[in-house]
């Protein structure tokens, strides 16, 4: 017994050493020898679930933001960042803890948190403290309602629901639509709500609605069978790509082949390990980001991400990457200096956010309303031979 205990303690020690070892190389501070008087180094924090069921989203956000920080620091401009990413397990309480930890560290600007529930909880704190908050991926409308200093990089949910319904009404008139959505997820529910409202206005025929939750997102055979017997020839999936991949697989096993229509959460499905891309043939989605886009910036980003993490980045990573650049642009426009307090930076940045326009991986000429909402155009693409193409091309 004693030996087992001693062994276990030794294991913990060893592990903590490993952890510490990897930790020392983590903060990506800019090279100090290049620092001249005009170079301003801001402390930039990010928050997302790095453990637990939603870990993929948080890891993408932190990784994407870190790549942008490294690029900016390597380019050696006047604005540089020191980066710190913290885990929140997609939980409001843990997210506020992570935010407080970052404030202790001296965070001046924040690109986070990742998920909607956590962002609302942190948003209230950030609004009270006057810390500028730019969430890469929390798309709920309640997020930006927290305060005038909260902004989004991604679309708000209503935006996507309306966009999808309009697209279907215009291009696929007469389709019988089934909707399968995750009703304990603010993102999915939000898109579904506006989609249904807009569908009613545009005369899109919704014949079936099925829901699922976190606990039941493994088996969709019942929902698919019901959609099939309702005669749906188009299935709208306002959900993330992981459950979507299960739906495509199970529909294939059942021999049910409607057109599937997704939103930006669907991006990433083609690069899932083990996913048979032929199943996604003909799937349509509205997405602001495509890892296949031919432009040089996207290609460089994808290459760097792949080299560092062995995976193709999804839109969360791209949103976070853009978020850092947006923050840089805003700091430049506001003329902030690194010795300013977080609250002073916040006031200065809020004043210029509605005036700047940024080109990023997820959209050209992104601009912001005073509410915090971003304006950029979603792009409808269709999957052919395992790649996104424009539907009309």
């Amino acid at each position: 017994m004693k030996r087992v205990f001693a062994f276990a303690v030794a294991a913990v020690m060893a592990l903590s050493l490993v952890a510490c070892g990897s930790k020392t190389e983590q903060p990506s501070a800019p090279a100090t020898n290049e620092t001249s008087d005009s170079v301003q180094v801001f402390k930039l924090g990010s928050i997302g679930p790095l453990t637990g069921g939603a870990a993929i989203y948080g890891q993408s956000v932190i990784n994407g933001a870190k790549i942008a920080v490294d690029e900016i620091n390597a380019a050696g401009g006047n604005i540089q960042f020191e980066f710190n990413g913290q885990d929140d397990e997609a939980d409001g309480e843990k997210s506020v803890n992570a935010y407080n930890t970052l404030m202790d560290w001296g965070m001046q600007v924040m690109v986070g948190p990742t998920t909607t529930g956590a962002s609302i909880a942190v948003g209230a704190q950030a609004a009270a403290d006057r810390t500028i908050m730019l969430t890469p991926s929390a798309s709920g409308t309640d997020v930006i309602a927290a305060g005038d200093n909260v902004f989004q990089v991604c679309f708000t949910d209503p935006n996507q629901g309306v966009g999808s319904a309009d697209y279907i009404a215009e291009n696929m008139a007469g389709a019988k639509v089934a909707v399968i959505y995750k009703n304990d997820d603010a993102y999915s529910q939000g898109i579904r709500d506006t989609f249904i409202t807009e569908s009613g206005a545009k005369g899109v025929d919704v014949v079936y609605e099925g829901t699922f939750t976190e606990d039941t997102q493994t088996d969709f055979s019942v929902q698919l069978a019901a959609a099939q017997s309702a005669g749906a020839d188009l299935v709208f999936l306002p959900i993330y790509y992981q459950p979507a991949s299960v739906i495509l697989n199970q529909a294939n096993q059942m021999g049910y082949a409607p057109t599937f229509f997704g939103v930006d959460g669907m991006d990433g499905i083609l690069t899932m390990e083990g996913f048979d891309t032929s199943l996604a043939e003909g799937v349509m989605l509205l997405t602001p980001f495509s890892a296949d886009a031919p432009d040089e910036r996207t290609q460089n980003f994808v290459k760097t991400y792949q080299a560092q993490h062995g995976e193709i980045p999804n839109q969360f990573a791209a949103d976070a990457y853009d978020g850092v650049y947006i923050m840089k642009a805003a700091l430049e426009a506001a003329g902030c200096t690194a010795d300013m307090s977080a609250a002073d930076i916040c006031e200065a940045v809020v004043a210029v956010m509605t005036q700047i326009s940024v080109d990023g991986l997820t959209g050209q000429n992104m601009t912001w309303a005073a509410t915090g909402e971003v304006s950029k155009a979603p792009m409808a693409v269709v999957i052919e031979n395992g790649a996104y193409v424009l539907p009309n091309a």
Partner: protein
Amino acid sequence: MEFLSYLISGISLGSVYAIIALGYTMVYGIAKMLNFAHGDVIMIGGYVSFCAMFYLGLPPVVATLLAVLACTALGIIIERLAYKPLRSAPSLAVLITAIGVSYFLQNSALLIWKAAAKVYPPVIDGSAQLFDGQLKIPYISILTVFACLIIMAALSLFVSKTKMGKAMRACSEDKGAAQLMGINVDATISITFAIGSALAAIAGVLMCSAYPSLMPTTGSMPGIKAFTAAVFGGIGSIPGAFLGGLLLGIIESMAKAYISTNLANSIVFAVLIVVLLVKPAGLLGKYVPEKV
């Protein structure tokens, strides 16, 4: 026709629950502990077979065997390191340790295999068509049901006929007396864990094939459901676990189809509560009146 297809998906889901519940019930019957890490062993089994098939290109049968080996070894190691030192401790201490092991396995998987969900390559594809193609039954469902039946029959035979099985039953009745009769109680418990974990590996392969998504948290909800199924049928009883799992799956499917997809789990749990109130030891469990 719709009803039949809902029924089939219920039976298929139920068979997966049943296989997991069989492992739960074995361990509970002998070690008298709720092994909350069981679901996570399933997840490890899924990942091991996924790696064997996807990275090494091995055929599904070999991959399944590899997963069984890996999970059996894992089960024995967990038992040795975490549960054995607590043999004489209160049962709640073991429960909390099991939860610790569950966290450990989930977070190890997160570090090893990363957070991104993997899509499990189906071990068999396609579906059988009945009534001129009006009713389609995925082959994987048929395989799952048969695997479940075979495992249940084999386990029943093993427990009732072999020497080891007798030792297990003796341990589950009375550990002290079993020890006095010359049964190696420690070894018996270890073997029970080994069998339970091997079953978890098979369940992992079948579950991931039917519901092809693999994440570090994949095992936790099916683990809870299977625990429910085991209690439903009468925990410790092998046919009970099978019946409980199957009923649970069917109720869940029917609730989703005809009542509300929102409340499917609630309906399953409500049925469980009603059954336990009528039969406090589960459907097939033995009710042992207390003697004064």
